[in-house]
């Protein structure tokens, strides 16, 4: 057993770790509501920086782009990732190497993936734009959706697939009426995770974006603005992006109890 002093020491360490993790974020959220806008002095509560965001055309445009990228890449990755997960579970015999190949995009450093995708697109002579960001986001999101759905499939009772067939259903009917509905919580969880990852992804989007304003996403816009110093507007924007991500992630975890990638 741990004695009292050691226990208190451990609690203290835990507190320090949490402080280290969350103080910067709290400061950011706090400053986004600071009337004066300076990080040095609190001059009162205000939502004016959020209002300023709404008036900033560049930011709204970038937010629109991000939404388009996140929605399209999520839908594509969810459909493909789910089918991939089901296919892999049915044909388990191929063993470990197939798993490694599928999960590689989750593990490969983003910068490597970004350079690889850039080279790939230029090799094919594809014109860059939002569509190339979407395709690139599908690449890594697919692996995440697949991992979440496969975790659910581990406890899937395959006899209901046979039962559906036995009762006269063709393969696609079984998929639509039995497999997908039973997996739906995991599919939605995977989609939310993919959406979150896509919304704040910077490196890959930066490398595979086209020239000009038409394919600037929100993280890229923030990066561009931050070169002129951290403005209260950026704090407000970061707070919004963070809230969206946290909500989506929390919902995803809630829907899919147990079974995050890698577990």
């Amino acid at each position: 057993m741990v004695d009292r002093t050691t226990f208190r020491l451990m609690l203290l360490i835990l507190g320090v770790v949490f402080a280290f993790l969350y103080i910067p974020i709290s400061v950011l959220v706090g400053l986004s509501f600071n009337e004066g806008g300076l990080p040095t002095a609190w001059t009162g509560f205000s939502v004016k920086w959020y209002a300023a965001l709404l008036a900033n055309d560049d930011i709204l445009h970038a937010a629109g782009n991000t939404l388009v990228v996140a929605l399209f890449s999520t839908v594509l990755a969810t459909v493909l990732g789910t089918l991939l997960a089901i296919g892999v579970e049915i044909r388990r015999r191929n063993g470990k190497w197939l798993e490694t190949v599928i999960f590689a995009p989750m593990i490969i450093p983003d910068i490597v993936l970004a350079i690889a995708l850039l080279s790939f697109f230029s090799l094919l002579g594809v014109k860059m734009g939002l569509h190339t960001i979407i395709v690139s986001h599908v690449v890594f999101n697919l692996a995440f959706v697949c991992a979440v759905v496969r975790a659910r499939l581990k406890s899937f009772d395959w006899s209901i697939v046979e039962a559906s067939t036995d009762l006269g259903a063709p393969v696609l009917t079984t998929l639509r009426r039995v497999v997908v509905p039973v997996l739906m919580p995991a599919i939605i969880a995977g989609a939310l995770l993919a959406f979150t990852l896509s919304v704040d992804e910077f490196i890959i989007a930066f490398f595979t974006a086209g020239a000009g304003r038409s394919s600037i996403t929100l993280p890229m816009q923030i990066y561009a603005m931050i070169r002129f110093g951290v403005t209260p507007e950026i704090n407000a924007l970061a707070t919004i992006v963070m809230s969206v991500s946290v909500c989506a992630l929390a919902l995803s975890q809630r829907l899919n109890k147990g079974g995050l990638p890698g577990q």
Partner: protein
Amino acid sequence: MSDAFLSIRNISKNFGSVRAVSDVSLDIRENEFFALLGASGSGKTTLLRMLAGFETLSAGDVVLQGGSIADLPPNKRPVNLMFQSYALFPHMTVAQNISYGLEMDRLPRSEISARVSEILDVIQLSELARRKPDQLSGGQRQRVALARALVKRPKVLLLDEPLGALDKKLRSEMQLELKRLQSEFGITFIVVTHDQEEALVMADRIAIMKDGALLQVGTPHDIYERPESRFAADFIGVMNFVPVTQTAQGLETSDGGRISAATTLRLADQIAGVAAVRPERLHIGDVGENRVEGNVLAIAYHGLDLQLHVKTPIADTPIVARITANVADSLTPKIGDRVTLSWSAKDTHIFPA
């Protein structure tokens, strides 16, 4: 062969180098309640899954009402399977589970709902039609699984260990219930079970399987009273075995005694074999052609009857005798008592060792 409704012809199934089902031929009659009985690994479930279409045939053919169904996929066969795990759809209600198969047949809505409510009535679950499977007890789930397969009115209903997951009391109720439903719907049932008592109670005919092959096919009475092999004798019910050798004088036990038997099965000269007799055919006292003395080792009280375990010189394992309650009342046997067991020649079975 003319009365064969479902004809299984020389079918085999190999999984790699393992032969799960080995050259099985069976003719099953219309409206028959047929049981495939065997221990786990005997190939009975593989055979059932071959009939359902989930396993391809390595050899042979399956003919239903004169037409081969061997090449039909499971969803095109006029045959339904009730799964051992029930395999109910967890996201659908009881009613939705049952109507699923009828929707696949593209029946009109009105007929589907009529047939669903009819079968819900039969299995007495009308009040639970809107429940999900995880809100049902094991027995209720079992009945939903049965209804879901039965409502399609298949030509043959295959049941994989249908009562395996139920407790003992519910199981004996459902044995009779299954029999009632089978005769009411007039559907041919093929049941896979490892429970010999279940097979004896429910089936019109039983096939005993061992190592992928059929050992014996017959009515419950045939199988119980006239086992054709030592395995069948041992597998069904309780049987006492006594090692014997065939000599010119007859069957000789290890202590030099004789056993008389009135069976057609004969052993070759000087060949070791076993004589066998059922516990309920043994009597206390000298009333049969065969007689042996021994000491009572243990007494097991079963309510309806007593089972005496008697150590005798003719067998290594104690001989079990079943004595009905009223006989036991007058004899009051005790542990350590010396008793004479006897049985008649017609109750002796003979098998090669």
